[in-house]
């Protein structure tokens, strides 16, 4: 590689087909209100964690739906489950359960090393 002084950049494109969206499926199954999000961002705006660090449930939510799981894995742990997002959500999405389920799903995936 050195002999070129550069490497082939990885594309930023979300490749919908090759992405693994099983976590989204896992949640759809257990928390149907996951579908109801309209990405208004209310959750991110009121978020206790978001007040202290870069953390947007709205964004994580969309990333999960697209199968961009690696970005979610670390970030989702930052949630404090305080529940403000659930209270402000205009679509009645059970956000806390979603967070819990995402964590669960990652634990499972670590176990079965998916």
């Amino acid at each position: 590689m050195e002999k070129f002084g550069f490497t082939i950049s990885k594309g930023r494109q979300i490749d919908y087909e090759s992405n693994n969206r099983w976590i989204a499926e896992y949640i759809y199954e257990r928390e149907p209100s996951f579908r109801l999000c309209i990405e208004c961002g209310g959750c991110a705006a009121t978020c206790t964690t978001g007040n202290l660090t870069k953390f947007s449930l709205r964004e994580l939510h969309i990333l999960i739906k697209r199968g961009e799981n690696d970005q979610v894995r670390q970030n989702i742990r930052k949630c404090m489950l305080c529940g403000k997002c659930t209270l402000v959500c205009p679509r009645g999405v059970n956000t806390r359960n979603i967070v819990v389920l995402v964590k669960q799903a990652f634990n499972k995936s670590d176990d079965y090393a998916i």
Partner: protein
Amino acid sequence: MQFDPFVIPFNIGLYFILIYVVVRSVIWFRDLSRPDKLRLQRGFFGSAFALSLKEIFLESLIHRKILKTNLRLGYMHMSLAFGWFLLIFFGTVEADIFGTKHLNAPYKAIFFRFFNPEHGRMGLEAAYGFLMDLILAFILSGLFLAVFKRIYSKVVGMKKTTRLKTTDKIALTSLWLIFPSRLLAESFTSGANGTGSFLTGTLGSWLASFLPAQQMAYPFWWLYSISLGTFFILLPITRYMHIPTELFLIFMRNSGIKTGDKAGTYSEVQTYSCSSCGICIDACQLNFSAGITNIQSAYLMKAIRNNDDVSDIADNCLMCGRCDKKCPVGIELSPIRMIQRRGVEAENDIRNIYKGYFRSRQSVTSQYSAGSPVYDFLPESNPEKADVLFFAGCMTHLTPTIKNSMIKILDASGVNYKFIDEHGGVCCGRPLMLAGQDKEARELINYNSQMIWKSGAHTLVTSCPICYKVFKESYYLDVEVLHHTQFIKNIIDEGSVKMNFLHKKVVYHAPCELGRGSGVYDEPKAVLEHVIRLEKSKYEDDNSLCCGGSLANMKISSVKRNKIACDAATELTKGNPDILATACPLCKKTFSSATDTRVADISEIVAEALIIPEIKKNINKQISAIKETITIS
């Protein structure tokens, strides 16, 4: 030598169960934690023992609690338990007095009539026989109810009855067979010999009039013995295990053992002590408001006993604690549910949230608990010094009226205070605990604890019962933790604030976490009575309802939450109060969308009633101080 092969099934069963119970109790004792062992030993030679005996008599035999809540159900349980006890007791006595020799093997007492068919013709014998028949009739009446409860539970005044697994069914049938078979066996024998009292005698002679009583009796004695045997053998794997287990439970409880937050002997004993009476099901709002009928504590206990996967049951609960208070056996249902939520989480002691046993600052000095930190983004906290800290809590930030009322009240009180989470604080950690994530919770707890110590305050006031409970229960603090209702009560008593009396009719809803959760009932009502006319509702104190908003339920849908809220609100506003008062931001928010009646937090009402004297000294200094308090972010 009086013996007959038909007693063998009974003997096998009896000795099996006796041995089983002994072995089991030894194992349980061994598994107890060190301090609990000591407690038990102390209890054994102390008052606990006597207490327990009393309680066993009242609860396990008479079933006083059930009688109180539901007379018919109580009678059913009493007749079976107490009746059977009497039957055994007097049976033994009978065998001892009237038997050929003293100190007989148990079966002699149980099958006394078979071995002494001639017994009970006249005099004292007859009187005694009458007593025995009376007891039997007493039991049969209860059994009659029980059978009906199965078929149609309304008979015993219950909306729901517990579902059974097969072994339970078999055990149940054998239990049901015991007394009828005894009745028939004795009747035939009496019929054949012209003995027996008003029940067995009458029935016997009537049967003998058209049946060969002598021949008929024998098979029924077999049946009696077999059903007893089966019942005993099945006992360990059925819910009837609660009969022996409850005795242990009562004794352990009286010796001061608590559930704690890890599975152990005590929680196991409690799970086995559940008789699936179903009172918790009737108490559960998920059941009667939201139509969720498979997650109540009785089912949880059963699932645990059967080693099923309980996660769905465990998480789908408001943790309102209504069932805890109603459980006739006094099982600590919510703590047990919490253990299930933690699952494997709660191994390491550092993560131990319940501080009941060891009050120390262990593991708190470092912000992070064991393992890799999750909330490493939390800023270094350096609060200003103050006597009183006001921690509004996350939810309160969504109900600004409460926040502002509290500021108004705090200012008026003239105490030197700091609003520590004015610019948004860090969550208290309880929501994480309720999700069974103690490790993460511990991080937040440690972080907040440090901030509180640094401030050097002597009092911590919070507006959120959720925070209040966790501050009290799981924070290692050397400050006085007060819910704002308690704080207001104090400043009223000190007379440091003056208030008008508002001519309004108010009904008070005790928040779960504050009421059943932390036992704070009186201060809120005292404060209210000071400023308005407080109406009673059907749901006071321990019996108060849950608003449905509870953070504890991970699974419930917003629609069902709202159902619960509406039902509760309708109940509470039956007397058309002007205000539905509560002491929790979450309750307020949930109720506001469920009723047309004005919903207000006590602090709001107080702030309304408050008489603000001419500007308090150094008030401006205070305000400016608040403005400068630690700015997180």
